């Protein structure tokens, strides 16, 4: 399917020339990379398709379309409507909050810029289950801190804020994606040549017009990419609907499917796999649209050869209200972590009260730290995170560059195959990889950290792709051509020109993958053995068997470590790329 119809060339020399030019244009590189990606992605993909068609027990399997039918006909329109409203609402909220705050931080002189960055990292490190508990502590209808405070003004027995509602689900899920949007768009905005915005300002456009007519259109590929990510992930997310929706008797397609997985003594993957296959069909359409939009890469190139002095827009009278807006984001991102910080000092969780200051202690930290598996788990997680992030970034950086620069049909296939794992449900991917390497003892990575690195490579490839793609799209082709003219080879151009210019995006991708491998629970729990225990296993153990305050102490330690690491990396990457924010 990758073969090209080649126009007839006169003679053997002509064909050789053509082959040479194809080599030069990277066609071969695209095909080689595509082959590598296929080897990685195809086995779990085939497993997924097979699981979606499998009916009955594992011992006596039958095949048919029943899983698809039961997903599509799941009890009326109510589930579908809730699912769509929830996914669209959450992605829209994330885009609004994330893009606006990234723009404020990167392009304007709004105060408190660093605070937003710290909050983004703080929030990324903490697993969703812990954050949801945090939100229940803050907004629970009975004893949620914010509701208790609000009730002292407005009265009533419950609420007034209803967390267990559609709005609550959108709010919590939207905030999960806000830091991703923020971090994905920040490097692109930070590297943007301000000449365009300045020109708008010179032509008499005000702040709002500049943002809406110049900045936003330039950002279209990045925004679209991240909107796609957020939409697809919220379409298939089940944590927030389960934890925040179910208590309010609200159900999405995914929670219904989640329940179908857990109807017996071992998980059943049929419906979950069928849903993933259906999602894959859905993903193809928006991805094709994304391609049409970004087909003319040059339109979005904002990093040019001109030397520019990044200048921040003066907000003037808008400075104070926009600072307030910017603070909403760190506050809402950090709030569940902060309530966990409070909880981590308590023997058993109680809503904050002055009277409890006496009972605060570091006991939970000692307990968590005293566990032999915490330290080993953190070390393994860091190692696995490092390798997963490095491999994902190496693969997707080259792939993204090829996709942006070369025109062959293979590029679309390459991007699509790299994006396929986006729809793999974590638990299905986990069992697939487990089975795959159990049956391939000649690749002896079962039970080692490498099986987790491999699993995370598959899981996070799509994200690395979107980060790198957005970053490379911003680089003007002339800069690379200039390098080639001066005699540099492809490797040198990539290393000395593309990588440094795209470094903020690449670093953000690396961090994103690193952070998510640490907090990912679904893969780790299946693939961890005695020699590759990760911190996620400790989290689940505490979740099942420990007090919430102990879990809180571990979450706080992780959040603090990750924030320091994130800030250090961002700082380094900006220094290295010479782009100041």
């Amino acid at each position, binding site marked *: 399917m990758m073969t090209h119809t080649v126009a007839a060339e006169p003679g053997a020399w002509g064909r050789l020339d053509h082959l040479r030019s194809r080599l030069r244009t990277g066609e071969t590189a695209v095909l080689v990379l595509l082959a590598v990606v296929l080897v990685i992605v195809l086995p779990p993909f085939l497993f997924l398709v*097979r699981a979606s068609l499998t009916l009955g027990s*594992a011992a006596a399997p039958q095949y048919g379309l029943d899983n698809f039918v039961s997903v599509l006909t799941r*009890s009326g329109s109510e589930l579908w409507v809730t699912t769509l409203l929830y996914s669209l609402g959450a992605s829209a909220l994330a885009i609004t909050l994330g893009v606006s705050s990234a723009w404020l931080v990167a392009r304007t002189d709004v105060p408190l810029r660093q605070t937003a960055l710290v909050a983004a990292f703080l929030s990324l490190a903490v697993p969703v289950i812990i954050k949801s*508990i945090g939100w*229940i*502590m803050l907004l*629970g*209808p*009975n*004893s*949620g801190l914010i509701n208790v405070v609000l009730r002292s003004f407005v009265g009533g027995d419950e609420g007034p804020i209803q967390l*267990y509602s559609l709005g609550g689900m959108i709010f919590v899920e939207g905030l999960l994606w806000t830091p991703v949007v923020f971090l994905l768009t920040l490097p692109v905005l930070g590297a943007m040549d301000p000449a365009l915005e300045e020109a708008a300002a010179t032509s008499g456009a005000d702040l709002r017009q500049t943002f809406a007519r110049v900045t936003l259109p330039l950002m279209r590929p990045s925004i679209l990419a991240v909107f796609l990510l957020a939409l697809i992930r919220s379409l298939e997310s089940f944590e927030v609907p*389960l*934890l925040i929706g*179910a*208590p*309010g*008797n609200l*159900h999405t397609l995914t929670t219904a499917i989640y*329940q179908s997985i*857990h*109807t*017996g*003594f*071992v*998980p059943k993957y049929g419906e979950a796999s069928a849903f993933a296959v259906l999602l894959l069909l859905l993903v193809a359409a928006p991805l094709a649209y994304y391609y049409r939009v970004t087909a003319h890469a040059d339109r979005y190139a904002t990093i040019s050869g001109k030397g520019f002095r990044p200048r921040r827009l003066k907000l003037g009278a808008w400075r104070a209200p926009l600072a307030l807006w910017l603070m909403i984001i760190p506050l809402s991102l950090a709030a569940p972590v902060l309530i966990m910080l409070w909880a981590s000092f308590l*023997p*058993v*969780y*109680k*809503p904050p009260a002055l009277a409890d200051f006496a*009972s605060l202690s570091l006991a939970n930290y000692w307990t968590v730290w005293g*566990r032999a*598996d915490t330290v080993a788990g953190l070390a393994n997680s860091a190692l696995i995170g490092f390798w997963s992030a490095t491999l994902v970034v190496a693969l997707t950086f080259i792939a993204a560059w090829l996709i942006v620069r070369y025109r062959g049909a293979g590029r679309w296939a390459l991007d699509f195959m790299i994006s396929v794992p986006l729809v793999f449900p974590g638990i299905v991917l986990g*069992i697939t990889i*487990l*089975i795959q390497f*159990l*049956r*391939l*003892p*000649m690749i002896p990575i*079962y039970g080692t950290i490498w099986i987790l690195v491999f699993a995370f490579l598959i899981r996070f490839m799509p994200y690395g792709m979107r980060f790198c793609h957005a970053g490379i799209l911003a680089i003007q082709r002339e800069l690379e051509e200039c390098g080639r003219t001066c005699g540099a080879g492809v490797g040198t151009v990539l290393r000395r020109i593309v990588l440094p210019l795209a470094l903020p995006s690449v670093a953000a991708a690396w961090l994103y993958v690193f952070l998510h491998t640490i907090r990912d629970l679904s893969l780790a*729990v*299946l693939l*961890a*053995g*005695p*020699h590759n*225990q990760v911190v996620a*296993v400790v989290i*689940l*153990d505490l*979740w*099942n*068997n*420990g*007090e*919430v305050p102990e879990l809180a102490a571990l979450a706080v330690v992780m959040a603090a470590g990750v924030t320091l690491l994130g800030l250090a990396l961002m700082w380094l990457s900006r220094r290295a790329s010479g782009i100041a924010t």
Partner: protein
Amino acid sequence: MTVARTRWPGMSRRTLRAALLLAGLCASPVAAQPSSVEAIANYDGADRQKTLEAGARREGALLVYTTGTQIKPLLDRFEQKYPYLRIELVRAGSSDVARKVVEEYRAGYEKVDAFELAAHGLVVPRDEEILQPFQSPELAAYVPDAIEAKRHWVVVRESYTGIGHNTKLIPADKVPKTYEALLDPQWKNRMAMSGTSTTAVNWVGTLVLVHGADFVRKLGQQNIRVYNLTGRALANLMSAGEVALSPTIYNSHVAASSEKGAPLGWVAPGPVPVTDTGVAIARKAPHPHAAMLFVDFLLSKEGQVLYRELGYDSARRDMAGSGAPAQKLYLANRPNYIHEYEDWVKLYQGVFLRRR
């Protein structure tokens, strides 16, 4: 799709047997020593303890699949007793462990020695013939209900799902003390339950067995809020005051948290479902002697006392008086449990999960 089963290096049963046999011959040339996992698991010669220790000394290691680290004090003590054994743990939820070990055995990857796992997680491995029935002198001390019919596992720790409440929000005399009392209109919209794993389903099953399916539907009218949190996390929400009353709270969690000052109380409203964790050994355990020593230790009075200190109850006859409820239902031991469970899942999902 058929996949060729490749044997894992060093995993051959024959090699293992030969090694054990050879080792056995060297260690004690007098009596015929048990060599297969089956023989070791059921050995009842007078020199049982000596044989197991000698074998375990040669094996030097033990791999246990379990749900949590709460058994750490037991492992520490076990390691003290048998310092030549290196213990390794794999932890995950019981259904994940079940799935994992089934796939491992299908692929010929046979490394696990023993399990300390919720009984419902042992059902599938048993049916897939991964568990080796065993015999231990400690079994005599156990109530028959705690021993799986064919001795595939024995319950080493148990806790019970009953009615938990926040003592600050509900005074002691108002607390519902029977399942019927939960139907009182005053509890409408005020209860919550844990929807994770088997907690909810086994609780519904108990109600069906005690009061019938119609009672479950009536209780559904009370509009019980379903939290997809573990029983432990729900107990935490209860001590925080977010949840006042819940019929799916574990006594062990209430005991542990109230010791730390949490305002929690617990009542057994009649027959309660037992959340039972069993010990079992794997049919192709590479370290069967060590596994049997582990089984003996967990079942011993010493082991059971350690469990009790962790908040769990015991099924040993000589450990009575631990405040355990009078009527306990060991659901996983019911002959038709797998099918009943599926019915209960449907009932639970229809009545509580998607309330009308």
